[in-house]
């Protein structure tokens, strides 16, 4: 059985493409199998469960719309982590950048500016992107100028960003001032911003009854832009060099300081957009509880997508399917939706510890056969 899958994968998928895909695909497959075993031990029917999941995620136009909507913030977040990673930086700060982006977008969104809708939307998106970029750029600058490790600083900036955004919309207790962005309507007792203006909402696409907004298009454009930036521009060339061999990059004249700040700012901007599209396209207001861990899931998505924009889009869709389908799974098969979290965790475990996958499917380690010196001699001149 294992042999057969590996033969099929080897024979029918082009080599270069397969090299990148094979581990994630097998990891997902294995996680689903292990997840089934887990369900069977607990007396659930895995076929019904996965069937329910697929039905809930892809069974109708409406379901598909929900899946895609779920995937949008994942795409932005995954791109953020993947982009930083290409430059040799680890952006754990998606969560904080996302909050800053969301609250900044909401701020511009609720402000009636009396400008045409396309401009209002654009400015709100820009605000969210810039806020995220600042929240990523500061740790970048700290790393570039003082050497403070970005993993530590971005984690710290998560706390600062989340609490700061929360304070902006806090109702305040007895004798305390309200946050500056809180909904001024005294009837609203929830700590959140007012609804954003109609003119700042992301335009809806024609797709069933589910609100399907422009976000997915923006996400795909962002993925294409990031791909172009990383692989097709001189800046991206320097970035990749920095990621692969920092001292070679410095040696060939790449400015480490400049690149580190820019890379983290771009990564932060992308994560900021993840929060922005949620705010402008789905919630229409900012409340501190809007986020369900997109920032941290982004790391998983980048990992599963092997830090490549196409991979990120695919794995974001997969996570979108799982999130969208878990409710239906619970209804149809009475399997608690938490089990999907288990499957997600298994996927990541298998991707991260891909030796397990290589062992199960007898795959050769990447680059193993390439460790050979392929040229010798000083030529025959």
């Amino acid at each position: 059985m294992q042999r057969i899958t590996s033969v099929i994968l080897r024979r029918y998928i082009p080599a270069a493409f397969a090299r990148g895909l094979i581990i994630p695909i097998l990891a997902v497959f294995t996680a689903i199998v292990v997840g089934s075993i887990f369900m069977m031990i607990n007396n659930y029917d895995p076929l019904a469960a996965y069937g329910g999941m697929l039905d809930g995620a892809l069974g109708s136009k409406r379901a598909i719309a929900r899946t895609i909507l779920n995937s949008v913030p994942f795409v932005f977040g995954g791109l953020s982590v993947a982009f930083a990673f290409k430059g040799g930086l680890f952006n754990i700060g998606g969560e904080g950048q996302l909050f800053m982006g969301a609250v900044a977008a909401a701020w511009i969104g609720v402000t009636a500016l009396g400008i045409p809708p396309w401009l209002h939307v654009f400015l709100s998106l820009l605000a969210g992107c810039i806020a995220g970029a600042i929240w990523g750029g500061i740790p970048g600058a700290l790393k570039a100028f003082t050497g403070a490790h970005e993993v530590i600083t971005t984690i710290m900036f998560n706390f600062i960003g989340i609490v700061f955004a929360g304070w902006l919309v806090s109702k305040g207790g007895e004798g305390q001032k309200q946050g500056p962005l809180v909904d001024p309507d005294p009837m609203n007792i929830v700590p959140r911003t007012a609804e954003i203006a109609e003119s700042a909402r992301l335009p809806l696409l024609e797709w069933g009854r589910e609100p399907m907004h422009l976000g997915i298009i923006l996400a795909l454009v962002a993925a294409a832009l990031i791909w172009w930036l990383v692989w097709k521009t001189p800046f991206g060339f320097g970035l990749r060099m920095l990621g692969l061999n920092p001292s070679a990059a410095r040696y060939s004249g790449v400015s480490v300081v400049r690149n580190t700040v820019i890379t983290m700012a771009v990564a932060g901007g992308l994560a900021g957009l993840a929060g922005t599209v949620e705010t402008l396209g789905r919630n229409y207001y900012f409340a501190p509880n809007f986020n369900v861990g997109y920032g941290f899931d982004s790391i998983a998505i980048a990992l599963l997508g092997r830090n490549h924009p196409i991979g990120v889009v695919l794995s974001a869709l997969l996570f979108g399917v799982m999130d969208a389908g878990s409710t239906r799974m619970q209804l149809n098969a009475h399997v608690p939706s938490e089990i999907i979290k288990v499957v997600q965790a298994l996927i990541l475990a298998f991707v991260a510890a891909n030796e397990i996958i290589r062992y199960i499917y007898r795959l050769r380690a990447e680059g193993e056969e390439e460790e050979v010196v392929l040229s010798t001699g000083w030529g025959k001149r």
Partner: protein
Amino acid sequence: MDSGRITVVSANNMSMVKLPVAVEMRGIVKRFPGVLANDRVNLSIKSGEVHALLGENGAGKTTLMSALCGLYRPDEGDICLADGSVGGAKVVDIGSPRDAIQFGIGMVHQHFRLVHNQTVSENVILGLADTPLHLDLKSVGGRLLEISERYGLPVDPEAYVWQLSVGEQQRVEILKLLFRGAEVLILDEPTAVLTPNEASELGNTLRHMCAEGKAVVFISHKLDEVMSFCDRVTVLRDGRNVAALSTRETDKKALAKLMVGREVLFRLDKSEVAFAEGALSVEHISAFNDKGLSALHDVSLSLAGGEVVGVAGVAGNGQRELAEALTGLRKVTSGKVCVNGQDVTNQSPLRFIRAGVSHIPGDRLGMGLAGNLPVSDNLIMKAFRHRPLSVGPFLSKTAISQFSDSLIEAFDVVTPSRNTPARNLSGGNQQKAILAREIATGDGSGDVGVNVLIAVQPTRGLDVGATEGVRRALLEQREKGTAIVLISEDLDELLSLSDRIAVMHAGKIMGLVRAVDANMEEIGLMMAGEAS
């Protein structure tokens, strides 16, 4: 594990010499995708001899030895071991390094496999199959001392590995094998990491081990060491045997020819070059090292275009910091660096590149190349910012292909394609790629030539053929009017290439002599810190 395939071979198969054969490898074939690494290679090693395995980088030495110590299984061929009876031998199947050590075969790798936070004794017993539940490190230490005395390998069993010098760490690696009862010891380029003094000590140790009846395989491409340490030598070229002879009946020149397949010049002739004044002027610079300690102290140098100034010195006396200060990679705390009259002191590395300063770093894969990137990306590493390689915010794929193909062609870089990762090239070809980039491209704008070339250990780790090629390229560049700072630990290299030699000690220049007037002794004294 699977050592079941044992057959007894009749005695008359073995060669007829006085020393008993410890290991015989017959018809070893090992294929890698697209490469035949070993093509029916034979090797016979006797107890009590140091046997050199000589060959250029990529000739198949390491592959052959990896088969012997269980890292690879050969595709064809047999490995026979002496089985104790007179002239008896058995074919064995070595499936893993653990099998190998059970057969008495062990290897000291180029990169040591020691745990730095453990003591020598702990490292030695690490991984032993039959360690008792309660560790008696005292008795281990006692046995170690016994062995180390017997073979002339002085080491303190209770010292932590991080406290030891590189030479001492190597001794621990050898002790590890002896402790496990190895009869055949394979040393992979053991002198590459040693100072000349440590290397000659190693030579003594090898003699001791031979006297005790051990067999030693000495993998190397350094002819001097092969001639002085070894009894017999097997030469490999392109994965095949070319010769097996006694060192007594050959000489350096003949070995070099066998190894490379053509005549090799050890000395190159320098032509007269008209110097152009003021290509590089370094005035009183000082700098710190990575630990923040003073590494360069009041260093001044002035080079004319077309002049080679060699920098001699024992490693770690500020040479690396000097090279970095002259390429913008390290800030100077005082002093001034000018290139062609242009003050570039403490400018960014990019400014140095734009001033026409090229740099062959000492650490080839650490700094000179990004090993995971293809050869073409490595070739454009400095020129990618300019037309035609990039136009505005676009990298031009076709221009990059043409550009890298032309460099690969012009500098004869042997590579399967421009898309091959640089780490898969041999050391010589990696260095050729670096040379091509540094000599031919400059900053890529086409406006500045190579005014200054900083070459750090440009021939380190290269075989004789590649060494000659690099030296030739440097001299050609000298004729084109480039001022070259050649930092090297190889005095022969410095004497044959340099016009003047500066000797560094403890971050200072002890003296500057003309190469034609230089004598080794004087330079040696200055290297040890005596001012001229």
